[in-house]
């Protein structure tokens, strides 16, 4: 079970001409691995996340998925502001064919939202919203979590529970912060000017990134 990139190209047509995000990327991430992908702002990290998650298609090449990869955690993944947190959780449970009862119990326990779980999500603060989204994504139980840097896994009770859960599954963390990658990952890749390079050695990746 893995995620495999085979000659993946991606470019956009923008007003200023062709914007190249990826030119022929190869790589393989096995189940359970914790991989960081480092890139400067504007290097195309978010696009890469969307492609890895499968919502956006590459211009050329293949991305083969043989494990369950989460939606990009930290991106607004179809949570409706009009629905309560609990209703949103139930929707995701139905969508992924999971047991509704089990999911809602997990979310209630993990998100620590209490009474708010039954209120429309538009009344939530941004912190509450991300806690709910995280809880729901963890409840679904993916093989690999795709995490965008926007996520703040602080040293809170919630943050520790999240890190512990991630520890038992795989992680792809896309970030511009070497510190975060060092803390959560065992291996890393660097995205720079359309070239995605995987390094087996974390220090080598971080050194390359810092030298950019």
């Amino acid at each position, binding site marked *: 079970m893995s995620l495999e990139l085979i000659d993946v190209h991606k470019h956009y047509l923008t007003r200023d001409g062709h914007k190249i995000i990826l030119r022929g990327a190869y790589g393989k991430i096995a189940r359970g691995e914790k991989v960081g992908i480092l890139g400067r702002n504007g290097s195309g990290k978010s696009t890469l996340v969307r492609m890895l998650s*499968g*919502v*956006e*298609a590459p211009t050329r090449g293949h991305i083969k998925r043989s494990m369950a990869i989460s939606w990009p955690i930290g991106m*607004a993944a*179809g949570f409706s502001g009009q*629905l*309560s947190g609990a209703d949103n959780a139930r929707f*995701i449970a139905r*969508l992924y064919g999971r047991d509704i009862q089990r999911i809602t119990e997990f979310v209630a326990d993990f998100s620590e939202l209490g009474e708010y779980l039954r209120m429309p999500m538009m009344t939530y603060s941004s912190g509450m919203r991300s806690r709910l989204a995280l809880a729901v994504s963890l409840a679904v139980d993916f093989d690999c979590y795709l995490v965008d840097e926007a996520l703040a896994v602080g040293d809170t009770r919630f943050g520790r529970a999240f890190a512990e859960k991630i520890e038992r599954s795989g992680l792809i963390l896309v970030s511009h912060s070497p510190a975060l990658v060092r803390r959560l990952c065992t291996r890393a890749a660097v995205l720079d000017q359309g070239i995605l390079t995987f390094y087996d050695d974390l220090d080598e990746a971080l050194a390359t990134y810092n030298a950019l």
Partner: protein
Amino acid sequence: MGIREEVAFTLRGARMQRRVIGALIIRELHSRFGRHYFGYIWLFFEPLLLGSAIGFVHLLQDHSARFGPFEFYAVGYILYFIFRGVVNRASAAIPSNMNLLYHRSVTLPDLFFARHLIEAVSCIGVMLVLMSALFVVNGEIVEDPTKIILALVGMTLLSQGLALVAAAATEAMEGLERGVHALTYLILPACGMFFLVEWLPDWLQELALWVPTVHLFELMRDGQFGSRFMAHYDLGYVAAWILLTHLLGLAALRITRRRLGLE
């Protein structure tokens, strides 16, 4: 892949799609109406009220002696209501649900199928209510209810095909949704709601029968009071429209999907 694997693969896909559409229906119901029962009642009352209003207007200027204005216009309006609702909402369906695509199992057509199922079921419900009311008040008995249901289903499918095409077109060209809205009203005099084909002069009859919705109105009225007039419809023609618009719309949405940039 052998045939057996092919079948298993297709079945798995079908089960997945059923699950996705089911989840979307419940989500749509909850977010459209909240968790209040009033919302669900509104789902039925909106077409019922509008239809009845139109029935009343025509009650005041009764001009066709053979049909009650209610059974003609109010019932006719329900059929038009499906068309209007489905086609008008088509252009908003993708932008307002874009973020759902982060879940890989959700496809663009699923977004439409879920909405249209709700639309069809509620309109069939409204129709049953209206029919029962007409029976209680006027003692009128529908001649063939299956034809009425068939017309409602046909109208939903035809509107769905058009909606798929309209959605793909508005994604490709911004601002087109205004044209779509205008068209749903401009088609009103021609869609078959206000006339029976046999009322028209010959040359106009031929023209009217090019419009697919006219066949569906004739079919529905054949079910209501078929023995009192000469119905003109060709279900093969409607089926061809449904098939063609679906093929075109689904193909266009595939292209749309590849081009869609999220956030």
